[in-house]
């Protein structure tokens, strides 16, 4: 998404990115970024909270007008109802380490099977 924003900017179209993965957007480098520190999924405001959504969209419109330097990030003032999601998302610890390793093995096995099937169907076995 950030790569698309950069391409539009390079070709004369002003952009603003709205997102919650701050590191990914800022590493890529975009002109204007409205960051909301929420779990991934609702970068434009909490579901059904039209007032918050209007505020975040308004912040993005303000930033379109006012940013004078690239890589301008504005963080909206909103907070999620709790902080549990911060550690829970894609967590790796002793409770799931073995299960994750097994899931990875299984996925690679399925991918290898699918590849073998493709080669067979294409007459390259």
């Amino acid at each position, binding site marked *: *998404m*950030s*790569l*698309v924003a*950069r*391409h*539009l*900017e*390079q*070709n*004369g*179209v*002003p*952009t*603003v*990115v*709205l*997102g*919650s*993965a701050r*590191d*990914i*957007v800022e*590493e*890529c*480098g*975009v*002109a*204007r970024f409205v*960051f909301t*520190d929420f*779990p*991934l*999924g*609702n*970068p*434009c405001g909490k*579901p*059904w909270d*039209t007032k918050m*959504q*209007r505020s*975040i*969209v*308004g912040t993005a*419109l303000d930033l*379109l007008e006012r940013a*004078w330097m*690239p890589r301008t990030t504005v963080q909206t003032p909103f907070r*999620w109802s709790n902080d549990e*999601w*911060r550690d*829970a*998302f894609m967590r*790796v610890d002793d409770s799931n380490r073995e299960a*994750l*390793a097994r*899931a*990875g093995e299984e*996925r690679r096995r399925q991918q290898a099977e699918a590849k073998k099937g493709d080669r067979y169907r294409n007459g390259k076995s």
Partner: protein
Amino acid sequence: MNQRRPYRSFVSYIDRSREYYAAQGYSQPYTWAHHDDAPLTPLKKPLSECRVGLVTTAGKMDAEAEGQGRRKIRELYAVAANPAPRRMFTADLFWDKGATHTDDVDSFLPLNRLAEYAAGSRIESVSSRFYGVPTDYSQGRTSLRDAPQILEWCREDGVDAMFLSAL
């Protein structure tokens, strides 16, 4: 509330996903796009005279997606923005399914909120179409195939400024 913390507050998805996939046995980490510089184009006219477009990473909710809970291909698309879709396909995207949901499309595709700003004359209008770009493992496909197509649609529709909302 003032606090002191020995760590940064926001989640690093680059660190988190690298460790998660390493735990699954993928030793070669994904390499994320990094640039030292970034381009910036100022608005060419007052915002109140601008047509604003919107790009999303979410997919269209078609019959297959609806029925089978998956889609065969992740495609680039441009579809009518009015009326705003009531549902979008997000099941195969990378977002926090444990903490939240995407049942309210305006929480990630704020076409109705933008239309309200157009009605209030903060912007001139919302583009007649919005644009879908698939998240792609290949940065080459995003830069060489997807981004130029979005630019072309943007020009066809007379878009003066673009919102890009990443799920």
